């Protein structure tokens, strides 16, 4: 039985991953923004075999509440073996370009709140000297593209933060997994045309679950994104800047 904290528990990716923990009878503490949906997810996971240690409503932008919620989770679970951080929003790039305020708000939700949570969380886990932190970033973190660089920049900040955190926590015996999903068919992407590169949350969840259990550092989900993003990263800037990605 693992003790698992999930932040952003009602995101489609988190919910699908949580079901895999539930299948194993793991003990879960769930955090999400909307109460009714958090309860729906918790009820489902309980019937699927999870032991629900607790649920807490949190808007991740309430930075002042982070410490209390994390301590509550640690207490309810009796220690944290796995912390999965999976909250996020998908900004409308066009609207962000026209509004500094909106851009900052999106960076706040997708980067600042995560960095703040990770700071507190790593403190808790470093003290215990064991456990794993897994964070959902994005393939968008690999290179800024005109179509969604606000989102990409936020995810890149988290991604780089995790790289450093991994090095620091290694000595304490705490692992850090960076999860970079590609296009996933979720409510977040409901408005997009779905093509061949799209995956279902259940497929993505299997790889995330496996990566957490096997202590991977950085994973692309599905794995073919590693090669797509390698090609995109290797593209010379001269060529890249003229492209329409």
């Amino acid at each position: 039985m693992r003790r698992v904290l999930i932040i952003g528990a009602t995101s489609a990716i988190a919910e699908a991953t949580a079901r895999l923990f539930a299948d194993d009878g793991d003990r879960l503490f769930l955090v999400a923004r909307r109460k009714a949906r958090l309860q729906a997810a918790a009820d489902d996971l309980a019937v699927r075999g999870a032991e629900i240690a607790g649920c807490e409503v949190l808007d991740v932008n309430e930075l002042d509440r982070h410490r209390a919620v994390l301590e509550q989770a640690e207490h309810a679970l009796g220690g944290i073996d796995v912390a999965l951080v999976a909250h996020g929003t998908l900004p409308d790039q066009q609207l962000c370009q026209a509004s500094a305020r909106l851009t900052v708000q999106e960076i706040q939700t997708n980067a600042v709140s995560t960095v703040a949570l990770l700071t507190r969380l790593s403190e808790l886990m470093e003290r215990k000297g064991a456990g794993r932190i897994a964070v959902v970033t994005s393939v968008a973190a690999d290179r800024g593209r005109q179509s969604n660089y606000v989102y990409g920049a936020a995810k890149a900040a988290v991604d780089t933060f995790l790289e450093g955190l991994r090095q620091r926590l290694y000595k304490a015996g705490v692992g850090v997994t960076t999860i970079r999903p590609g296009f996933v068919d979720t409510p977040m992407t409901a408005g997009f045309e779905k093509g061949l590169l799209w995956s279902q949350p259940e497929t993505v969840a299997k790889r995330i679950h496996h990566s957490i259990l096997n202590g991977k550092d950085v994973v692309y989900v599905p794995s073919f994104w590693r090669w797509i993003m390698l090609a995109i990263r290797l593209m010379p800037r001269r060529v890249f800047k003229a492209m329409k990605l």
Partner: protein
Amino acid sequence: MGRNSRYRSWARPPAPGPQGAVRLHWRDEQLPEGGGPFLAYGNGRSYGDSCLNSGGTLVDLRGLDRFISFDAETGVLRCEAGVLLSDILGRFVPEGWFLPVTPGTQQVTVGGAIANDVHGKNHHWAGSFGHHVRRFELLRSDGSRLLCSPRENADWFGATIGGLGLTGVILWAEIALKRIEGPAMEVESLRFSRVEEFLELSRASHNAYEYTVAWIDSLTPGPGGARGLFFRGNHAAGHHAAAPSRRKPGLPVTPPVSLLPRAAVGLFNTAVYRWPRRRHAVAHYEPFFYPLDAVPNWNRLFGRKGFYQYQCVIPQDQAGAAIGEIIARVARAQEGSFLSVLKVFGNRKPPGWLSFSRPGTTLAFDFPDRGRSTLALLDTLDEITDEAGGAVYPAKDARMKARIFERGYPALHRFERYRDPAFMSDFWRRVTSGDTQQGAANA
């Protein structure tokens, strides 16, 4: 077609007219304003056009796939409408619970099972799926939410069971699972060569066997009417049966032509009938209940033109003669049904106003679409069914005429007052005459 090309029906690969889709993920969501007419869509296993809505918007409910509660004492499960029957079996068979009624595929949603009031091999004992639904919540296009049970909003309960997704969207339902000792089934198979013999076997098996069904060879009926195999079974006590391996390869693409030519179907049917088999066997429940689920996308075997399913029910006093005649007509037409299934229903009163299963004998075929000759044969079968006072199954139909539907489902006029005014399906457009819709507008 864009992103909605995945919304098809099971038997007819040619796409319907352009239709939009919205996906519900949470029970607290509402239907979008405007954008109708809507139609509830589960996992797309209806064969014909009852799950299609050309020019309208499908409400995709697969995102509502959560369990809500389970009472381990009574077996009462509450779950969202988009949960698949396979999810329920996967979770609860290991705990000793089984579906009270299951159709021939586990790839259907709970909402779909209610909306089509599906039946199984145990109809003679358990009735249809709707008999085991205790309660559900219905979301209407005006934003209202109705709790429905035999006691609360009983009219809506009766209209929605078998209501083809037209009364609104079922958000969740409560069903009673039943106790089993394990995943094993004890199965017996017997040959028969005449319809009367089949009816006699059904009568003789009624009390001692929970599950009965027969397979018939529709190409070579033989002199006395129908040759086939009669299967009867019970959940086994204390036996362990190896689970079949999961996910066999299916057809990744639809071939341009049918891979089931007449000659192959004939050989297959003869081989199945003649193949020596053990009379008694212990088997895992999956191949017994869901033989076709082992071949994902088996519908693609019929090629791009797809196929027609035909299922009718004939009242018991007419069954011998009418079934015999239908089988003879099908054999004469040489349309070549791959799997033809025969089953005697029990006497329970149907739970839904538009429920298909009712006392009588039911017969199902699948015919590759060969155009006019196939349609002409199906019209003939409709006439025989109608003459005998029977009905054709909407979940499997893509072509019956309004008159045939009206005669088989006299409650449809009453039902029309409960159909959500912002809901519609290609099936419903086709089988309701102008009068019926006029009546609804005035109601």
